[in-house]
């Protein structure tokens, strides 16, 4: 089940919220959340529920043992066991095919590449459970004595299949003690509605433009043009942010409605002035996971320059691999390693010098990210090469009737999508509220209150219209 579906909104979320708020007792509410979460996960294939249960049980058991074991070899052994099981499972389900394919290319073995279906959300909940156990090992969080609460943490439908990767310590206290205020619910509703509209209206609309102008099929390659590719990839650049951040918005919103406060996962990444800044703002829960559980344990930047770059290389290779079992994702990760290394060596400082270099920095970052998305989008190297050539008008003409037509036909929509990518709306809202309050213009202030009250419901209605009339509703995270 995906958030941006009528089934989820009306047949799942609506009854879930109704039942949840009819119940007053916290523990019972948690049981309701768990039950709904398990149904939500099982909807995509009940078989994989076993995997989720197994991972949660292993992590719960390991963490419990870790909390009882004093520091020493035994404690490390428990941690190694957890990491082996978790990484082993993710490897089996996500990477077996990829490695078998590579082995076959190099050694001609195996003859048959196993086709293993990737369980939805495995990369998210596995990382969540790993972070929980490691945090228990480090003594940063208490082990949870009740298995079902760890299962609730891992399976909570808000973030189970598309993130953010919520740390246990973020919600540990709230699982047992959370208060729900009108402000929480109201903010949650607004955040969910904004996320839903971002996905159903903006991201899906951008996806249609992207798929039309930057096709993903070999057949479509024959008709590509430079201008079309630029516009198509621009639309993809908008789509991937709007889509991904929309899921995080919806997750954060739904969490807030029931009293959970998840951390932000995106912070307007396209406003970044450097590539490093971009990664501080993009999929923050994943970047911080790799920082805290890979980069720093490897020594971070404390073991000399050579080791620092090696650590960065490993982290960015893994970041790429996390996004999908294909060489293009690894290359995409390493592509960022190159730019991050260059910035670390000298460019980062130069770009911060003055206003002009800062502007150049923004342009440079957007271009790096743009070409990064080209790498990310095309898993087939021949198609990738063709698109890169096409972007520069090599082998394909640059002018495109179609691009001009699509642009003119969607010009207002694209402007709206660009506005959705930047914090303009958020800043304007804050500014207007603050200024009308300061200047005691209560009529205007309350007009803003009315708008605030009406907008979420309006956005949900508009999103539903978009979802009903549009069968084009891609879910980007199946590969994660």
């Amino acid at each position: 089940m995906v958030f941006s579906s009528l089934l989820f909104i009306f047949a799942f979320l609506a009854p879930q919220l109704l039942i949840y708020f009819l119940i007053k007792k916290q523990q019972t509410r948690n049981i309701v959340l768990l039950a709904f979460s398990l149904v939500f996960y099982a909807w995509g294939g009940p078989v994989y529920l076993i995997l989720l249960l197994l991972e949660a049980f292993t992590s719960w058991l390991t963490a419990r043992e870790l909390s009882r074991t004093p520091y020493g070899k035994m404690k490390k052994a428990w941690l190694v066991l957890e990491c082996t099981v978790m990484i082993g499972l993710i490897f089996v389900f996500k990477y077996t095919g990829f490695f078998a394919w590579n082995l076959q290319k190099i050694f001609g073995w195996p003859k048959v590449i196993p086709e293993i279906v990737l369980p939805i959300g495995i990369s998210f909940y596995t990382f969540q459970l790993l972070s929980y156990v490691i945090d228990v090992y480090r003594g940063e969080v208490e082990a949870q004595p009740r298995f079902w609460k760890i299962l609730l943490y891992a399976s909570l439908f808000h973030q189970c299949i598309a993130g953010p990767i919520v740390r246990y310590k973020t919600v540990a206290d709230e699982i047992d003690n959370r208060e729900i205020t009108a402000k929480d619910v109201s903010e949650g509703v607004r955040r969910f509605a904004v996320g839903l509209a971002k996905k159903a209206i903006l991201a899906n609309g951008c996806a249609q433009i992207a798929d039309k102008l930057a096709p993903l099929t070999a057949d479509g390659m024959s008709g590509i043009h430079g201008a079309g590719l630029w516009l198509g990839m621009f639309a993809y650049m908008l789509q991937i942010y709007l889509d991904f951040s929309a899921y995080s918005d919806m997750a954060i919103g739904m969490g807030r409605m029931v009293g959970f406060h998840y951390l932000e996962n995106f912070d307007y990444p396209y406003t970044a002035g450097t590539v490093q800044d971009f990664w501080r703002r993009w999929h923050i829960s994943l970047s911080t996971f790799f920082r805290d559980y890979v980069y720093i344990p490897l020594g971070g930047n404390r073991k000399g320059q050579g080791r620092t770059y090696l650590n960065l290389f490993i982290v960015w290779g893994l970041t790429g691999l996390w996004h999908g079992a294909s060489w293009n994702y690894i290359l995409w990760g390493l592509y960022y390693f190159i730019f991050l290394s260059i910035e670390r060596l000298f460019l980062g400082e130069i770009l911060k010098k003055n206003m002009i270099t800062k502007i150049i920095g923004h342009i440079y970052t957007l271009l790096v990210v743009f070409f990064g998305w080209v790498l990310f989008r095309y898993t087939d190297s021949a198609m990738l090469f063709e698109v890169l050539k096409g972007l520069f008008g090599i082998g394909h003409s640059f002018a495109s009737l179609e691009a001009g037509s699509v642009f003119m036909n969607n010009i207002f929509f694209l402007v709206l999508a660009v506005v959705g990518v930047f914090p303009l709306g958020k800043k304007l809202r804050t500014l207007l509220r603050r200024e009308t309050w300061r200047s005691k213009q209560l009529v205007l202030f309350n007009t803003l209150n009315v708008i605030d009250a009406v907008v979420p419901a309006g956005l949900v209605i508009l999103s539903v219209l978009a979802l009903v009339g549009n069968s084009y509703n891609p879910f980007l995270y199946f590969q994660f």
Partner: protein
Amino acid sequence: MDNETVQKQKRLNLFFRTLGIMLFSLVLFVGFVLGCVLFPMRPEESVLENRKLTKFPKFTADSFLSGEYTSQVSTWFADTFPLRETMVKAEWGIQNKYGLRRDAINNVADGDDVPDIDELLSSIEEETPQEEPETVTETAETSSQEATEPTEPPTTEEPETVPESVDGEEMYRMNPQEAGAVNVKDLVGYCVYGFNRKAADEYAVHVGAMGEALKGKARVFELLIPNNSAILLDDATKAEWKLLDERKVIQYFTAMTYQQSKEVKYVNIYDILAEHSSEYLYFKTDHHWTQLGAYYAYVKYCEEAGLTPHELSEYTEVDSGPFLGSYYKTNGYAQLAENPDECIGYEPIATNDFTFYDRDQDKMRTGKLVRNMSEYDVAVKYQGFISGDTAYSEAHNPNLSDGSCCIVVKESFGNCFVPFLIDHYETLIVIDYRYNTNSLVELANRYNAPDIIFCNNLEAISDLYVMSQLGGICY
């Protein structure tokens, strides 16, 4: 600001927060009731998109465990959501405001090159097909054919249900309307045709085979309908969109057919359509031609077949009102709603009644050759011509008893062409080869010297699968 005002405003803030939550809850509640309670309101067909909507899936353990079942339930839930049509229309209205949406030049022609016709023709120079019929010994109108047996549908088994006087109303909702690449210019949709040489060659083989198989037993005519872009667009636009010269394409088709059989008579309708290009020959929002366009083709056919065509003024005009066709509803060019078509038909003189078998060929229904569709949805007006695409249709002219027969082998473009023919033949049979697999030769042999017309649009026959379907009735 004094404390009392601040406290009052805080209460107001809380009120507005609560209001927001209530409004959101109301939307969810209404959606819940619509989606989960009001099951009878769930539509089964989409008039707007002209398709049957997803059915609730059957439960099997395998499909459940694989997630297939739940995935299908999700699709069913969204696809049959109550008030779906209203919401889809509203969404199209919104999408129409996405930009300065007037023209939509999304395509340039993409397809095979047409082989050099001059070269091809010179290679068969001696055998160039003539536009005039060779020797018409007797016309259908003057033939003294024996009265045939009461006609039967071309099925080998009797249908379980005997011809039933059921109006084919529901058929108007089920026929697919599809168009390929489309551009929009000045609020008119145009087909961007791509030539498929393999399909063209296959077409020629099938039609040629019929010419040979029915040699001496029937006259076989070939009528190729150009796309609206070929007839209506100026040369500059054609060049900009890299459109092929469809006249050359038709020449290729006929030359290839002629290579297969000299018995097939080509009816050139391109020129007469081009002469009348300023008239309303093609719909603006749909890929079909209008019945006026089909009328000129009929005039040309009569010329070739030795018949005397009726004047347009002799027919009763049937105005079905505004029409928004496939370019609007399937290709999604919502801006075309600003320039809707008017669907005008011409009721045949001899009779307007006919019977037909639907695609399942299990039930005979009655219908009108040209029906007034003014009370039907704006999207389905073209289905007023012979009740849309059906497997087999048959009409009888009560004023003739000469045994004359015409069999039209067509795709949907033929629908508005065939009503004109009933005034010239005792029996008119229409075969849509996409839904009928019975032998054309066997059918033709049941009648005395029938006229057989292959009536097809170039775009419709540029698909290899469709050509394999044509082949299915030819052997």
